[in-house]
């Protein structure tokens, strides 16, 4: 049964008056492939949009690419934001009609973006060192953590997973903000949960894991949930779900969560996309 408790573990409700949400036309500055699957998109936007927090997302009105116009907006995590230069970055995998449309954008084109939406990652001032574990498009979502953590003097160890080394994105970005990066891939057979668990256990042992941050893999999320319980560590997970409105109106993006043994349904766009690691269900 669906109770949809008004329980917000994130900072959405308090943040809302201070963090306006805008729907606006931005100017495309750059839109280039970074590897076989991903594109890196940079737009110039308003200060409000550029004030996005790590973990928040935008709803992009994707142009069509010869096929029919994608009807709904498409959610994309903030990959980078710079309030000074009013730049906003996205890293997206070309998947279907919407992202194929995005891939047609050229510098000088315009893109309608709506956001920043949802709750971002939050930091506890007492933390010294956190671990970020991401895979696939989840690497895009975790990337801006590197900068936010650094600004707060928190050290990051990033475990970045992909099918092949050439599909690993954000590695340089994490490093540029002083993070330690461990890359694991399927092709090298280093990405299995057992190996990641081994790496995580040694980080915990070395006191380098005050909290888990994860996105993009249920398997790796479950590993972290187990360790979080075992060592009583906090954690946050950024989740995905198909969206229509992106701002809590339509209830199409719900997921179930386990809150103290009770299953509750929450809207990913509004109550998340960042949720308490321990409550998340795969």
């Amino acid at each position: 049964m669906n109770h949809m408790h008004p329980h917000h573990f994130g900072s959405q409700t308090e943040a809302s008056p201070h963090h306006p949400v805008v729907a606006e036309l931005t100017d495309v500055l750059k839109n280039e492939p970074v590897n076989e699957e991903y594109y890196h998109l940079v737009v110039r936007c308003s200060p409000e949009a550029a004030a996005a927090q790590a973990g928040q997302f935008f709803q992009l009105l994707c142009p069509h690419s010869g096929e029919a116009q994608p009807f709904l907006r498409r959610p994309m995590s903030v990959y980078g934001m710079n309030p000074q230069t009013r730049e906003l970055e996205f890293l997206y995998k070309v998947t279907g009609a919407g992202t194929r449309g995005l891939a047609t954008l050229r510098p000088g084109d315009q893109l309608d973006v709506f956001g920043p939406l949802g709750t971002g990652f939050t930091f506890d001032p007492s933390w010294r060192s956190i671990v970020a574990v991401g895979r696939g498009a989840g690497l895009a979502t975790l990337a801006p953590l590197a900068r936010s953590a650094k600004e707060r003097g928190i050290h990051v160890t990033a475990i970045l997973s992909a099918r092949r080394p050439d599909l690993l994105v954000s590695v340089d970005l994490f490093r540029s903000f002083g993070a330690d990066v461990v890359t694991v891939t399927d092709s090298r057979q280093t990405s299995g949960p057992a190996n990641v668990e081994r790496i995580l256990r040694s980080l915990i042992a070395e006191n380098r894991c005050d909290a888990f941050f994860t996105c993009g893999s249920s398997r790796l999320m479950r590993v972290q949930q187990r360790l979080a319980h075992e060592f009583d560590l906090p954690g946050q997970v950024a989740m995905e779900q198909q969206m229509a409105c992106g701002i809590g109106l339509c209830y199409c993006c719900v997921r179930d969560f386990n809150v103290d043994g009770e299953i509750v349904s929450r809207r990913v766009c509004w109550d998340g996309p960042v949720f308490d690691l321990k409550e998340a269900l795969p």
Partner: protein
Amino acid sequence: MNAVESKVDLSVKIGGLTLRNPIMPASGTFAEGLEKVLDFDRLGACVTKTITRELRTGNPLPRVVERPGSLINAIGIPSKGVAYFLEKTMPHYAGYSTPLVVSISAPTAEGFASLAAELTIPGITAIEANISCPNIEEDGKAFAMRAESTEKVTRELRKATNLPLWVKLTPNTGEMPDVARAAEASGADAVVVANTILSMAIDLKTFRPCLGNVMGGLSGPAVKPIILRQVFQCAKAVDIPVIGCGGISNCDDAVEYLIAGASAVQVGTATFLQPKTMTTIIDDLERFCAHRDIGRVSDLIGGVVIEEADEPDLAWLDPIS
């Protein structure tokens, strides 16, 4: 308000209720989140997502699928129940001067009535009865599919509340004018035309329905010509106001509905694509009227010009090529 703005009177009357303008959200496409992008005090009304007495889970996922120019949804009516609504949701709207219209649903006429009675309290301006839901006393057929079941549920509702009562019809019936007349005869103050059109989509990769609920309701620009026709037919059939709802994305769409006979309109899916659609329409509507020297937006209502020669009775039933 400056002089330019005050030239056009945007207000419309829905029964005894005067709205500051004819633009309001469609149930299920509006919630507190929208405060972040527009001022609720500019809207003609606030209309809530349909609530039920009990807790309800809603439908299995996926709950939406897109099609060209349209959305199919099968959200179901996830509801935290009436107690939660009164305690948590309602106070949220107390800060606004805009009328709060609460959409309700129930599986029986009696259930509708008791819910309406419970909601007949200060702070709630009107009840919108979403009677497109299955009537368990009629083998699960939606109330609004037939005139008799519409009459019964509306009569019970009318007895239960003295609030303005809007009855929201389903477009999935061939007897809409009769259904609208039944609502009017049994005491509705307005009819909302209409809910979504029952639809389906299949995923060609898996051969499974795209929606967890198999079928869902179609909304968005694709449905506009159909619902506009139903608004026109219903406005001819009844004397109470008709509130148009289906595929409205811009001021031109809203005007098309008003001149077809709608006294106000609801905006749903368009808000998902452009969150400020409602306030944009309000601004543009004022400009539309000013530009054409129309002093009152209410003068547009039912303004479609039909030549006698265009109006052979049978032709309406014989548009088929």
